[in-house]
Structure formats: C-alpha cells, structure tokens
C-alpha cells in the first residue's frame, strides 16, 4: 500500500483531493489526517481583538451611518486629478505643435532674395567651380 505524500495531505486539507480507499483503510494516514486537522484549527485560531477597538469601530460606523450616504468624493477625486493631469499635458504639448517657424526679419528676407536674383547659377553648382579653378 502506498501512503499518501505530504502534497496529498495538503491537497486534501484544502479541498483539492478527496479521501480514497487507501486513506480510509490505512491507520497511519488516518492518524495523520486527524493530526493535520487539529494543527490547522490551532494555526487558524482567531486572534483576540480588543473590545475597545471593536467598540471604537462601531462608533465610527454609527457616525458614518448618521452622516448618510458617503459622498462621491473618492470617485470625483480621480476624475479631477485625471482632468488636471490631462490639462497639464495638453498645456505643455499643444503650444509646441503650433509653434511658428523662426521669424526672419524683413531685411534678411530682402537680402536673401536679392542674392538669389543676382546669381545666374543655382547655389548647388558653386562647389563645382573650385574643381575647375584648381
């Protein structure tokens, strides 16, 4: 007869394994089941909670009951903080999208235009002149 393993006992303790024929007939395994049940009851014994603490908690509950339904502040808090965050993000990013190209003064514009007009060659040809001069 094969005895139950510790895993088997754990699974049985937590409702994941049913008792089988072996455990019903084996005195050792039955004894172990009994020991584990006692051990579990001991381990999960409810700790004492002070009566003062429970009384104070009940007073808080009664106070909240008298105040009526809780305000929706908790839900609104999230909505407001999300809205503020979005406002900040948009505030920082939108001006960049609409940022105009760097302004050029009128003088600079006229100088550039007149330079283009006076030269018969496209600007891209200028570096080639150096090759022929050498």
């Amino acid at each position, binding site marked *: 007869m094969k005895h139950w393993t510790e895993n088997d006992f*754990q699974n049985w303790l*937590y409702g*994941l394994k049913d008792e089988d024929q072996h455990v019903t007939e084996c005195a050792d395994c039955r004894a172990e089941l009994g020991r584990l049940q006692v051990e579990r009851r001991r381990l999960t014994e*409810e700790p004492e909670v002070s009566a003062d*603490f429970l009384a104070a908690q009940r007073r*808080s509950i009664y106070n909240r*009951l008298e105040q009526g339904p809780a305000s929706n502040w908790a839900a609104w808090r999230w909505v407001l903080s999300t809205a503020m965050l979005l406002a900040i993000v948009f505030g920082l990013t939108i001006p960049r999208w609409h940022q105009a190209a760097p302004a050029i003064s009128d003088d600079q514009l006229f100088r550039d235009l007149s330079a283009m007009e006076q030269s018969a060659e496209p600007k891209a040809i200028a570096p080639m002149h150096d090759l022929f001069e050498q």
Partner: protein
Amino acid sequence: MGAMADRLGANLVATADTRDFGAWMTSEQKRIFLLCRRMLQDFGDADAATQDTFLKAWQSLNNPKSKELDDPAKWLTRIAINTCLDRLRSKRWQFWRRRPGGEDEAAILGMAASSDPDAEDRLFAKEIDRRLKQAVEKLSLRQRAAFTLRHYEDRSMAEIAEILDLDVGTVKAHLFRAMEKLREELHDLYFHRGRK
C-alpha cells in the same frame, strides 16, 4: 451566524431596524474585521474595509428593492470580500504608499493573544505566519480570496464559489494555483517538526 442575523434575514424586507442591525453587526464584526485583515494584510485598511462593509450592508438593507436574505452571514462575507478586492485593485496603483509602520505592527501584535504557552512554538508560529502572509501577497486577487476563505474560514468549495460568484471548477483552479505558490510555506507550517 447569530440568532439576530437569522431574524434579520427572515424579517427584513424594506427597512432594517437600527437596533437589530447594531446587534447583528456586533455579532459579525470581529469575524469580518479578521477576514478583511487577512485579505488586506494591513490593520488600517482592514478597519476601513470593515466599516465600508457594514455601511454597504446597511444601505443595501434599507434599499426598498432589497430581498429577504437566505444567509445573511454569507451575504455579508461576499460584501466584505468584494470591498477588499476593490481596495486591493486600487492599491495596485498606489505604489507610493508606505508599508505599515511600526505602530501598526505593534497594534497587530498587541491585538493577537496567543494561547500557546511555549515561547519557542509561538516564535516559530509567528515566523511561519509572517512568511505565509508574504507569500499570500504574491497571489492574484481571486487566488488570495479563495485561499483566505478556505484556510481561515474553512469554507467549502461550494460556499467559496457562491461568495466569489464563480463556479466550483474555477475556484478549484484558483485554489490549486494558490497552493502551488504556497506549498513551501504550508509544508513548513504543517510538517516542519515531523509527524507527532
């Protein structure tokens, strides 16, 4: 479940009587607080969740549409578990929250009175309990709820399924995965000193 809870369940149709509710709350308060404490692993959170649970119960009982309750204790447990799950979900986003302070730990330890006279046993049990709590924090929310209801409240699979609004197979799967994660801690808890 106390007699008051039975009466509350049987008589309740539209409005809950404050005195009945108060007596029922007193009879269920400690159990609900400990359940919340085990689910949330935090004294202050458990206090707040317990209060929220009874407030929700009161509001629901005073709702004209509320129906007679078959099992008020189970119904209250479901409210408590859902309240704790909501808190745990919102806590996931609050990563900046500090861990419980020394005062909280002292309050918890002061709250727990051990019946075991052997100091070594007590120390060992505390150490294992601490490890188990740490391990429970690694479980998913459903796994945590299923394990807490099974380990501390000794609920049957069917009851856990009803409380969590899941089918029994799903509860078993959650519990199985929880057990896989907790096996080492549970092994030490039950088998550390060999078979007696």
